[in-house]
């Protein structure tokens, strides 16, 4: 909202410069976002928080300046003019529901000369960004800005039956508003109608049919209090914002409604030579301002201050509060009508703190009592991130909302389980993702486009799906879901391209394969203390990752269709996704130390050729099965296929480490065992030793 320096000065003495004033307003909670010199005046643009409709006026801001600087407000007093009985024009007002409109007053002003506004009035409005229309409309706007209460002037002679009805619109009723837009109304919209039809949308905008024009002679000046929720709904339904709606939504008050009406009448009489010729106000609600008991000690306890009771009293009365009764430890504070935001003692404490100055309050450090039962558990997520970063991966963060096309492109069928957004602004906000993979594929494709040779990224984030309904079956599409949204933490890894690194032997270029991903996951599981894991090929589906006999995720090599969809050429993309919720039960990072071996280990290699279709895993299982307990580990240390090896076969070297806990093993013992392992392999898998 905008206010001007000179206009403010009509309400009180200001002895500080506009710049200092801006600073003081900002520090009192009226953030001045810009201050501009305009002719002989200065325009302040202030951001007004939604709890302070009283600040949406020159008077309100002036009152605040008074509280801050100690200057007294010069409040104008308006008197109800006496109208001779024979001059009173008849007008009928009916309010159908008091809950929709708690107060409605109509002033009739006759014989007005509608014309252009005087220059000073035009200039004032223009400084505030308001276009001048004619003297009557300008005066209602002037009062709106000055006192904060929206008014509306109807052309009295155009109101059918000289009647005002405050009612809900009927379904299908229409009207054209002052901005020349036809509006379709409905039962949730409060309107001001005449005998026949709607003539204004209550609190938002008047109608074209009863607009004050240069032909107007007699006017009906409306000042009312409308239900803020109704104004808000109508504003949202019609997409129609106005200065008036802005204030009604935030809450106006009765006293100002009455004062504004009188002030406007006086100006109209002065500037447009009108004459009061009637005042109708069906009933005025009784208002009793709230009374709050306030202990100065409470204020100081909340703020950590030591502000004397007298100072507290002075601050509050400066803000317009009525300090009705006082004892040493207690104030009874009467809340003025324009401060509907103040309801509790804490609200008054804030008022004291604001004017006393937040910057005057000391900094203290509280004694914090940590609760080890809350969040005390070590979270595995930072550990996982550390391991993956140590293995060279880069963490990505992608949007949890995706467009359905991205899922389709990635080969994921949208189903009844996907969680859709009711009010997306664009396609990319349609669905809460059920998997991280599509986002990572897109991110990977983006990086390939940026000429990255090697992309190795991961993300840890929630994935979403609808939970099962009470019956245990997924709820059918379109129905209101009684269940809940399943939100579970997922880890996803994406690898692609040629990893090149320098060694003593020169540059090595290594194209990533699913085995690289397997290596990363093995490293991760080992670090997390997960012992029982396995990788099982599932054909088309890729490889399932098994922990403690349970599938906890998958690894896959992206198929050509998806690669094409993302325009990835001549490259393998390797992906994994793991449900972290499922593995967390098996994480054991508090493992016990096992003693260091006392006796030396001896290593024996087996080099052999075996048929290509025999799984290395099966070979190792047989080796370890036979070798236990002296065989401590059996690892593939070399692997080759090529010229020296018969076609359809592979050459392997397995390194076997033997050790006993209680003695040094002898050559004979090891040879016996090692040879028996070799024989078993020959027997079971027809290996040929080399």
């Amino acid at each position, binding site marked *: 909202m905008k206010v001007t320096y000179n206009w403010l000065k009509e309400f009180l003495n200001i002895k500080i410069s506009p710049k200092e004033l801006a600073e003081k307003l900002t520090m009192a909670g009226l953030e001045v976002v810009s201050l501009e010199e305009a002719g002989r005046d200065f325009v302040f643009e202030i951001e007004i928080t939604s709890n302070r409709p009283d600040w949406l006026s020159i008077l309100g801001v002036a009152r605040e300046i008074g509280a801050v600087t100690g200057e007294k407000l010069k409040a104008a007093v308006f008197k109800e003019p006496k109208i001779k009985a024979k001059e009173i024009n008849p007008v009928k007002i009916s309010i159908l529901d008091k809950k929709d409109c708690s107060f409605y007053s109509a002033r009739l002003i006759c014989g007005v000369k509608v014309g252009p506004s005087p220059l000073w009035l035009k200039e004032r409005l223009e400084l505030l960004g308001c276009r001048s229309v004619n003297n009557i409309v300008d005066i209602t706007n002037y009062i709106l800005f000055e006192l904060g209460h929206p008014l509306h002037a109807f052309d009295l002679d155009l109101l059918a039956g000289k009647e005002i009805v405050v009612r809900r619109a009927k379904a299908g009723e229409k009207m054209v508003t002052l901005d020349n837009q036809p509006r379709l109304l409905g039962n949730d919209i409060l309107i001001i109608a005449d005998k026949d039809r709607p003539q204004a949308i209550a609190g938002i905008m008047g109608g074209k049919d009863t607009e004050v024009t240069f032909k107007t002679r007699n006017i009906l000046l409306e000042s009312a209090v409308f239900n803020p929720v109704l104004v808000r709904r109508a504003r949202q339904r019609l997409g129609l914002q106005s200065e008036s709606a802005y204030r009604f939504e935030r809450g106006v008050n009765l006293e100002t409604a009455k004062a504004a009406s009188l002030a406007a009448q006086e100006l109209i009489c002065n500037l447009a030579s009108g004459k009061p010729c009637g005042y109708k106000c069906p009933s005025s609600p009784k208002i009793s301002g709230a009374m709050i008991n306030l202990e100065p000690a409470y204020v100081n306890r909340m703020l950590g201050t030591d502000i004397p009771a007298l100072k507290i009293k002075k601050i509050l009365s400066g803000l317009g509060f009525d300090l009705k009764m006082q004892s040493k430890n207690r104030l009874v504070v009467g809340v003025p009508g324009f401060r509907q935001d103040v309801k509790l003692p804490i609200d008054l404490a804030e008022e004291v703190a604001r004017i006393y100055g937040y910057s005057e309050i000391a900094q203290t450090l509280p004694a914090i009592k940590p609760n080890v039962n809350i969040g005390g558990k070590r979270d595995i997520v930072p550990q996982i991130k550390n391991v993956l970063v140590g293995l060279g991966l880069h963490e990505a963060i992608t*949007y949890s909302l995706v467009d359905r096309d991205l899922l389709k492109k990635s080969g994921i069928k949208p189903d009844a389980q996907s969680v859709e957004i009711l009010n997306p602004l664009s396609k990319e906000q349609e669905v809460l993702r059920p998997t991280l993979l599509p986002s990572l594929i897109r991110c990977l494709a983006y990086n390939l486009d940026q000429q990255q040779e090697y992309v190795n990224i991961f993300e840890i984030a929630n994935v979403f799906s609808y939970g099962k309904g009470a019956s245990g079956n997924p709820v059918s599409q379109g129905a209101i879901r009684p269940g809940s949204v399943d939100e579970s933490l997922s880890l996803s890894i994406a690898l692609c391209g040629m990893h090149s690194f320098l060694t003593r032997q020169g540059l090595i270029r290594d194209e990533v394969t699913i085995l690289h991903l397997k290596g990363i996951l093995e490293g991760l599981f080992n670090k997390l203390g997960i012992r029982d894991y396995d990788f099982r090929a599932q054909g088309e589906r890729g490889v399932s990752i098994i922990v403690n006999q349970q599938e906890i995720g998958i690894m896959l090599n992206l198929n050509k269709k998806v690669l094409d969809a993302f325009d990835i050429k001549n490259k393998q993309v390797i992906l994994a996704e793991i449900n972290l919720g499922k593995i967390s039960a098996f994480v054991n990072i508090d493992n016990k130390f096992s003693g260091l071996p006392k006796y030396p280990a001896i290593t024996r290699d087996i080099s052999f050729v075996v048929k290509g279709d025999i799984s290395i895993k099966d070979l190792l299982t047989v080796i370890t099965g036979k070798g236990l307990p002296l065989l401590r580990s059996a690892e593939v240390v070399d692997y080759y296929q090529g010229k020296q090896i018969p076609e359809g076969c592979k050459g392997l070297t397995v390194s076997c480490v033997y050790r006993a806990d209680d003695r040094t093993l002898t050559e004979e013992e090891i040879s016996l065992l090692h040879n028996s392992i070799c024989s078993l392999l020959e027997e079971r898998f027809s290996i040929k030793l080399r």
Partner: protein
Amino acid sequence: MDINLIQAQIEADLSNANSPQALEELRIKYLGRKGLIAELTGSIPALAAEQRGSFGKEVNALKNRLLNLLNEKEKSLAGDSLKPGNADVDIGMPGIAPELGTVHPITRIIGEISTVFNHMGFCVLEGPEVETEHNNFTGLNIPLEHPSRDAFDTFYLKNYTNFLLRSHTSPVQVRTMKKHKPPLAIVVPGRVYRPDAVDASHLFMFHQIEGFLVDENVRFSDLKGILSFFLKSVFSSDIKMRFRPHFFPFTEPSAEVDISCLICKGKGCSACGRKGWLEILGAGMIHPNVFKQVDYDPKKYTGFAFGMGIERIAMLKYGINDIRLFFENDLRFLKQF
């Protein structure tokens, strides 16, 4: 042959050898298959029987001594080889090591902030991203159909009434207070969502970190003290902090907190809009209505809460000028952190 003479010769040769190559030549000269020691050993059978034993011992002693000398010299030469120009490795070559990955800058900032609060005794908690209308709004004293909601545009779920994507991390306050009794000292990082068109400073998803402390006798001055320590730890010990009155439905009194501009140090520049101050977080004393919703007695307990946008802090700290970079995940961006 006089062993002593030979030994003197060896010592002289060795002291002149100044490179591994020279040393290797000496090794061949003395210890090679046709070297001096082999020659001496070969001459033993030709000696008189009574001389063989003592000469053999002398040759052996000479050989051992020679080996020792060669080893020592080798070590001292190896020591020299790190001197530039005197090495067989060009130290200008790249070092050989596995490549390290990176955590996302957002994760890094969350870690940094959490650590500061951990040191002060706060615990880190997280909450769900799909929230109830109650936890996101009504439980936080944000009534239905009230202008205070306008600050929180929110994504709602289709076919799932009263559920939404949280528009701030504050619902975790409600969740935690429902479950636990004070004292509480918690920080909550996480993703939040607001319908917004994407541009250099707006996204529909971003991160916040929320903190709150509830106990008996928590004061506004404590909030100032904690935030001052926090901001100085994260930014710099010489920054200034200022509290400005503001309005949040869930706190009273409420404040917006500014820090002196990191670039101009408060003089006013383009980064801070000539104000000298940067708005950094929102804070305040938890509203008694929030306590009532979770059955805390507002007469007994008081508390404060604060919240801030992680992206904004990361942008200020790292000098990033486009918020979209955080979610584009360009490796050339990620690798800088």
